[in-house]
């Protein structure tokens, strides 16, 4: 308990440095996430699963605004350790985590006059590891499935490449291997620059996406993107259902938003704007 508290104070301090500032009266009024509020009518007033583990992430957009190069760093590290190929064109593109414009990531939210250049801030987008994931519902082979810790994972060897999950995901989080990711371009450069032998490279014709670094979690590490920005207060990771976890504390301190909460997918990704 004591340790948790100390950690938490540290985080709060870091967060302040990163420009979140002390929680205002307004912040405490809006305490907690807006998940229950936003999805309440659709889900009959009930919030998504409160029992069991539910891993989630907080992305602090303010920290990324202060240090825009962080976003690139996250993408870089994730794509290199996960053998994500670079085909050099948007048509074949595969991406697990990427920066996009605020207006696109939060396409349905409206700010008539956006504060302080928000439109220019790089906002990270990745799989939301939804608590009620439509991609899992749509998959005809269980190649996409939800693990007991809340991670939405994939079995690349079972996927038939029907891309039903891509139509079903309302966040554009999934990519398809339109061609062989292990191949080379016309100049003989491999699409995967340096192969990480510790992680499987995919084959042609299957879908892939962020796996919340489940292979790292298994050995007690945190997701690589979160690790890459450690010490900046830009990203937090942990069990949303554990009231003592760092991420729970952050969520109860700051006003956070999810992407498209009205769709009933219950994203486990929260943004501090």
């Amino acid at each position: 308990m004591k340790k948790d508290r100390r950690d938490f104070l540290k985080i709060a301090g870091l967060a302040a440095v990163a420009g979140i500032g002390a929680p205002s009266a307004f912040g405490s009024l809006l305490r907690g996430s807006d998940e229950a509020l936003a999805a309440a009518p659709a889900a009959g007033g009930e919030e998504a699963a409160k029992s069991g583990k539910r891993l989630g992430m907080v992305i602090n957009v303010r920290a990324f605004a202060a240090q825009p190069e962080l976003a690139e760093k996250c993408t870089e590290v994730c794509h290199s350790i996960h053998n994500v190929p670079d085909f050099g064109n948007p048509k074949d593109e595969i991406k697990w985590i990427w920066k996009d414009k605020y207006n696109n990531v939060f396409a349905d939210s409206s700010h008539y006059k956006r504060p302080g250049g928000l439109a220019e801030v790089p906002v990270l987008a990745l799989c939301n590891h939804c608590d009620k994931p439509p991609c899992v519902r749509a998959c005809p082979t269980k190649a996409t499935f939800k693990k007991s810790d809340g991670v939405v994972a994939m079995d690349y060897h079972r996927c038939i490449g029907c891309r039903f999950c891509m139509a079903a995901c309302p966040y554009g989080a999934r990519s398809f291997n339109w061609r062989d990711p292990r191949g080379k371009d016309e100049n003989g450069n491999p699409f995967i620059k340096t192969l990480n032998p510790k992680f499987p490279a995919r084959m042609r014709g299957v879908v892939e996406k962020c796996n919340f670094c489940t292979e790292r979690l298994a050995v007690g590490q945190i997701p690589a993107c979160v690790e890459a920005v450690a010490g900046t207060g830009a990203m937090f990771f942990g069990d949303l259902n554990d009231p003592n976890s760092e991420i729970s504390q952050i969520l109860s301190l700051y006003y956070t938003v999810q992407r498209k909460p009205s769709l009933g997918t219950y994203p486990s990704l929260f943004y501090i704007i």
Partner: protein
Amino acid sequence: MIEKALTGSKGYWAWMIFLLAIMGMGGMFYTQQWNYGLGITGMSRDVTWGIYISQFTFLVGVAAGGLMLVLPYYLHNYKEFGRITILGEFMAIAAVIMCLMFILADLGQPIRALNVMLYPTPNSMLFWDMIVLNGYLFLNVVCGWAVLHAEYKGVKYSSWVKKLILLSIPWAVSIHTVTAFLYCGLPGRHFWLTAILAPRFLASAFAAGPALLLVVALIMERTTFFKVGQVAKDKLVTIIGYAAIINFFFLACEFFVGFYSNIPGHMHTLEYLFWGLSHDGHVYNNLVPFMRASVVMGIVGIALIFVSRSKKSDGLLAASCVLIFLSLWIDKGLGLVLGGFVPNMLEQVTEYYPTVPEIGVTAAIWATGFFVLTLLYKVAISVKLEKES
């Protein structure tokens, strides 16, 4: 009975060889796709389904459309359709075969297709679609063949066949309903997220299926001694005409909901399809000419089909059926599936253009369908003419 397909006129053989040539050409393109991957098509991260899946969607309708011949005859004992119900059943066979081929062509890992059965997943609509499509294929093969064989032997088909035929009636509705559920249950795809998607599919199916059948039947009237019969033709005109009218009524309903509610997500795709969507200073409108042509052809077709009935003109009838069929093909076989991906989930726009190999494979699958259809119709017509003479 099958030997009837092995004798035929010069025209018959020329037609079959023509189809085989297209199939061979498509096979070559498919080999390319097999070696390179689906990247050889025009599909992208944003538009993840292209003409393969949209043809599949449309052809499920053609398959279900046979119901409009089977139902009046077997349920309401409408004798005039006696000569053509078999055509409806055989068209369903050809159409479902094309559907299955289009799905296979679209899979990234076709060799793993059986995973759908090895790991049955009842929460996935694709799993159910596979069950209903294969079931429908089975029902039509068994019923169609049994009925025709009985006629060939000059006996009445056995009573279990009748039971299966009755089962095939709700089954035809199910294939198009489940296919609509593939689309209309996805959160965030506003264009598809409409409760009248299944009714829309059925309305267009009940127009497009019989329209194609009538065109083929009219061609056979010219080339063989087979006659559909004026009464049956008039009845089909009523069915096609009203189904097409209901289809356009549903489309109008979609427009009302989208534009009166003024909800952007509900308007974007309609704007993209019919006027062009402006985004970041660029207007995206590659489907606009097609969609507008679809509406014009549909309306002209509906008007003409009723004129053709009062004038008793076969030429006009064929022309109007072709117009209605093309109109619905554009509507369901292009706009519905492709439009659903514009704009994408981050409100960006990527347009889709099919590639040459993709069009080649598509043409080859259509050719396979017509090949099967011609074979089956040849057998059916020969048996019928033999019995009648």
